[in-house]
């Protein structure tokens, strides 16, 4: 299994580890619930160095990323970030990712750890421009600071600017604790926060600089366990669980990130056909009405008929009930918001609720 540059730091913090997408990552340091609630109340510090980063540089970079992206990269100006999808010709989702625009000729793509090889092969095989693609995942560490206190904690380390002035989905290249950092106002928790990209050699220094301030603010280091419950509460999909190469954006509620007007991209024709045909499956959020926990793969029923399957499910530490996403047949859910989830051969009641959950 691969390890991030912060592996030893996690060991020192007594992390319990888990395998995720070929990486040995911290699952939790103290407790998933405590870490989750710390992010909601104050702040959490995350090692996300397993994520993949690609640089796309040179003439044609703009046209090239446009061609791959369902969302409109043309809407980006320098210093802005875009959430988007790469789809295959059939409209299936290859990955969901962030695109950072430095300039017209320079972009950074941030992709899911488990998809690095797949994405790289896809991108390289479709490059018909002079743009150069470089996988910088190994050289790049990613540390996230997420929670209502994130701005207060980060600011003293960034003398040259006030980080509260970095708007949502924007980034600046600056220094954090004297370390050259891409300071990105993004996250996967539903809280205010930053994702900090640094050279892998500086990962430990940045973590050690921020850690005491995080602890002093009653924050915590946070593992992938709480990252999963945080993103679920915030209504954010997880690639490989909620979607894969065979699901299209409309089936998982990501249709708003498909911008087809006046532009071409791979998968466009298939997605237009899908939309014309009418959406037969869709993603819903649900809340269990008893204490049972719905998990990935459990069958979802309405009025005794199976209508779909749970994709993500977990207890919500914030709401103190069990929540989840399911993909269900569209026509069934309009009239009635009561469903059942089959858990170990027994039906457990649930209701459809709006997403995000919090």
């Amino acid at each position: 299994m691969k390890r991030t540059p912060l592996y030893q730091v996690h060991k020192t913090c007594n992390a319990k580890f888990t395998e995720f997408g070929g990486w040995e990552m911290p699952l939790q340091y103290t407790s998933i619930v405590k870490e989750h609630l710390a992010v909601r109340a104050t702040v959490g510090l995350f090692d996300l160095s397993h994520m993949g980063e690609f640089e796309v540089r040179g003439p044609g970079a703009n046209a090239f990323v446009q061609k791959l992206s369902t969302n409109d990269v043309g809407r980006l100006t320098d210093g802005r970030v875009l959430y988007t999808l790469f789809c295959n010709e059939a409209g299936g989702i290859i990955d969901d990712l962030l695109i950072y625009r430095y300039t017209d000729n320079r972009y950074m793509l941030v992709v899911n750890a488990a998809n690095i090889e797949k994405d790289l092969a896809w991108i390289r095989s479709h490059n018909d421009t002079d743009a150069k693609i470089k996988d910088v995942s190994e050289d790049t560490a990613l540390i996230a600071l997420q929670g209502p206190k994130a701005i207060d904690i980060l600011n003293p380390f960034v003398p040259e600017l006030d980080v509260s002035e970095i708007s949502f989905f924007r980034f600046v290249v600056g220094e954090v604790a004297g370390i050259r950092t891409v300071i990105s106002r993004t996250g996967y928790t539903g809280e205010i926060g930053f994702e900090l990209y640094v050279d892998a050699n500086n990962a430990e220094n940045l973590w050690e600089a921020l850690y005491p301030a995080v602890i002093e603010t009653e924050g915590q280091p946070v593992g992938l366990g709480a990252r999963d419950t945080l993103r679920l509460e915030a209504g954010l999909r997880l690639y490989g669980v909620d979607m894969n190469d065979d699901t299209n954006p409309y089936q998982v509620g990501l249709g708003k990130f498909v911008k087809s007007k006046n532009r071409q991209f791979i998968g466009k024709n298939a997605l237009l056909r899908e939309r014309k045909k009418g959406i037969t499956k869709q993603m819903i959020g649900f809340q269990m009405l008893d204490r049972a926990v719905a998990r990935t793969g459990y069958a979802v029923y309405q009025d005794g008929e199976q209508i779909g399957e749970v994709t993500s499910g977990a207890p919500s530490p914030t709401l103190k009930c069990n929540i989840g996403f399911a993909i269900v047949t569209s026509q069934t859910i309009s009239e009635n918001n009561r469903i059942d989830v089959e858990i170990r051969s027994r039906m457990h009641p649930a209701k459809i609720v709006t997403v995000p959950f919090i």
Partner: protein
Amino acid sequence: MIPQELKYMESHEWAKQEDDIVTIGISDYAQSEIQDIVYVELPEVGTELTQKTEFGVIESVKAAFDLYAPVSGEVIEVNESLLDAPEQVNESPYDDGWFLKIRITDPSELDALLDADSYQAHIEAEHA
């Protein structure tokens, strides 16, 4: 940390015998590994359990874990308080966090379980 008077399974359930009644729970080691227990599913009073077969489920935030019966017998009491307060299993695995009381049919089944020292050795081997 590991109570000497109890018997254990390799799957981390404990059994406490008082005449023909055996109380069942999970060990402190198991609760600390599972953490954040949010749900416990237990059989009803009157259910017949068979040694080493599943009788229930506990769920943490992250995953579900099967529970195995350390001995065979009839369920005569269920710790109903766990339904509303499953965190008792984390807080008090050997006392308030017990699951079931069983009337056993074959006391010799207890001889097949681990004593405290063997269980300690088992944990250390599992953790190594």
